[in-house]
């Protein structure tokens, strides 16, 4: 794989980048801060004995005007990428979002609108060379309207529907789209929250994601237990969802 990773300097993105770099795939990092990028690039370079230095460019999901240039830089460095992974996004608890309307606007814009715009740039480039892989992090929170993730979940619900449609529309042209739906994962994003049962580790999620990309699967629940949990949740009647706080 020649993979571009937006958000590859932290959390699950960092774990995916490491997994790919260690097995010899080429990686190009996109993130918001130069110092963070250079440190992560050095980390990935050191993880494989025969690796050329890992390239990187600035890219911020809040600045869609920079998307094209960032992907062009990745294309040049990798000699044409064939995989794009998006782990970046914003998160806050429902309470925090209800208390901060401006952050709510930023979060839904980044997680839905700007992520879709980024994916449009990416999938057009992939399609011109006969397809490839696009893996984007949505969330189990997007599977059903739920009290504790009303706003965050809705941004991910929109993204999940977009990714499903992309898969339907371009599968025949060689583009494999993977919608990743992680449950609770112990990363910097969720630090400070009490981990529920079945909380995952970033390395475990990264392993699942890379395997699903290799196998060109369309949807991945990870850790796997969440597929079962969300199956139940999706089928619960509305009057039950009104009562429970899940």
């Amino acid at each position, binding site marked *: 794989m020649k993979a571009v990773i937006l958000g590859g300097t932290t959390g699950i993105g960092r774990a995916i980048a490491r997994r790919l770099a260690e097995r010899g795939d080429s990686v190009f990092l996109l993130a918001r801060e130069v110092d963070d990028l250079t440190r992560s690039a050095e980390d990935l370079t*050191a993880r494989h004995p025969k690796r050329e230095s890992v390239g990187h460019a600035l890219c911020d999901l809040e600045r869609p005007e920079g998307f094209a240039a960032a992907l062009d830089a990745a294309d040049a460095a990798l000699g044409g990428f064939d995989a794009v992974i998006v782990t970046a996004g914003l998160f806050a608890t429902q309470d925090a979002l209800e208390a901060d309307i401006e952050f709510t606007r930023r979060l839904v814009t980044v997680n839905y609108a700007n992520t879709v715009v980024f994916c449009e740039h990416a999938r057009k480039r992939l399609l011109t060379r006969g397809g490839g892989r696009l893996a984007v992090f949505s969330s189990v929170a997007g599977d059903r309207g739920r009290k504790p993730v009303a706003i965050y979940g809705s941004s991910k619900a929109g993204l999940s529907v977009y990714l499903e449609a992309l898969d339907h529309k371009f599968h025949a042209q060689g583009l494999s789209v993977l919608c990743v739906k992680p449950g609770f994962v112990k990363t910097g994003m969720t630090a400070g929250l009490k981990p529920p049962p079945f909380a995952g580790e970033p390395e475990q999620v990264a392993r699942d994601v890379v395997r699903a990309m290799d196998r060109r699967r369309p949807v991945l629940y990870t850790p796997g237990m969440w597929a079962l949990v969300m199956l139940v949740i999706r089928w619960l009647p509305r009057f039950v969802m009104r009562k429970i706080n899940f």
Partner: protein
Amino acid sequence: MNPRNTPTLSGWGRLPAPGVEKLSEDLERLTRGAALTRGLGRSYGDSSLPAKADDLVAGSRMADRILGFDPETGVLRAEAGFSLVELNRLFMPRGWFSPVTPGTKFVTLGGMVASDVHGKNHHVEGCFGAHVRSLRMRLADDSIVDCGPDQEPELFDATVGGMGLTGHILEVEFALARIPSRWIHMESERMPSIDEFLAGLGRAAPAFPMTMGWIDCLRRGRSMGRGILMAGRWAEASEAGELAPRAAHPLTMPVDLPNLAINDLTVAAFNALYYWKHLRRRATTLVAPDPFFYPLDAILEWNRVYGPRGFTQYQCVIPRQAGAPAVREFMDLLTKLGGASPLCVIKDCGPEGRGMLSFPLEGTSIAVDMAVSPEIQSIVDRLNEFVIAAGGRIYLTKDRFTRPEHYRAMEPRLERFLAAREKYDPHRRLRSGQSVRLLGDVA
């Protein structure tokens, strides 16, 4: 006991203290205003626990990036949360190993510096701090400085073995050691008594770069201190062959065992089995590094075997000048006091390093796990009184029960450390449960 809903932190000995740790990949930002940094929580006692519940404890384990590796010299620079597990996984296949490794690989580089860890090769390589070239630190006044053996040496020497009380370690640079293969050539020998054990350790030290021994600490009388001496070196490529050691698949201890699980009878049975498993008096084998260096890491969360009461480790070093009789007397006292445990380890230490509070000194180190019981304080007190009289000292990384007056009596270097602390943290912003207990910091 804490009310159920109060969040707590605990060391490896599982005695909790109220507090929470904050985690972030950005350790530099996280440590601003923090009272303490904590790695993987493998220190046994209260050295990684907050002095009070609302002190900010910065968890370093997500700050785990390699910042540079030179394949010519083996010099590695990494963020302080980079762990020995990762180091071994990535670099052992490439022919490099940490110059010094403690008895668990679940430690961070920052923790290895703060404890100035030692290993089976202490008599040859010294402590981990002896191999550190540079540290980047956030000091109590929130400034960020680099230090090393020749740069800000006072800060460096106070930090190596300084239990995190001089500043937050952000980055560590040190040189890895070349290894000729991924196997250990080990010679082991059953030792019937403490005197033969000490003589055996003395014989093995000049012949082998790595030595240590396991002792059956329940035996009294003539077989007191019987056990198994293990000496090793890295096997040459020609001895080791092509095969790579199998990847370890550790089991996890799923539940707390009841408090009674570790008692004199079960320990005696375990110890007898372990001792006689070594049927031949002497054996030479090729072993993988993991079971050689980290036998206990094969069971994750093994600390749960002591049950909810928790446990501590008593580790001290008896100086060479006190001689073999002092070690024999110590073993006599230890076995008389009881506190049965299957884990008792003996090791020859080399000369003291430059870390102001670094644990090892030339002599014999003995480490023993003990379940927490109503008698634990008096047991530790009695052992400490002996160690003070013998001119030895204890290892802060393991300690939870030593009294401040005992610590002062065994640590003539403390004044120098406190002077450095006065200089770099005059307001004692950095503190831990241990620094409150032993150094009189205000909680």
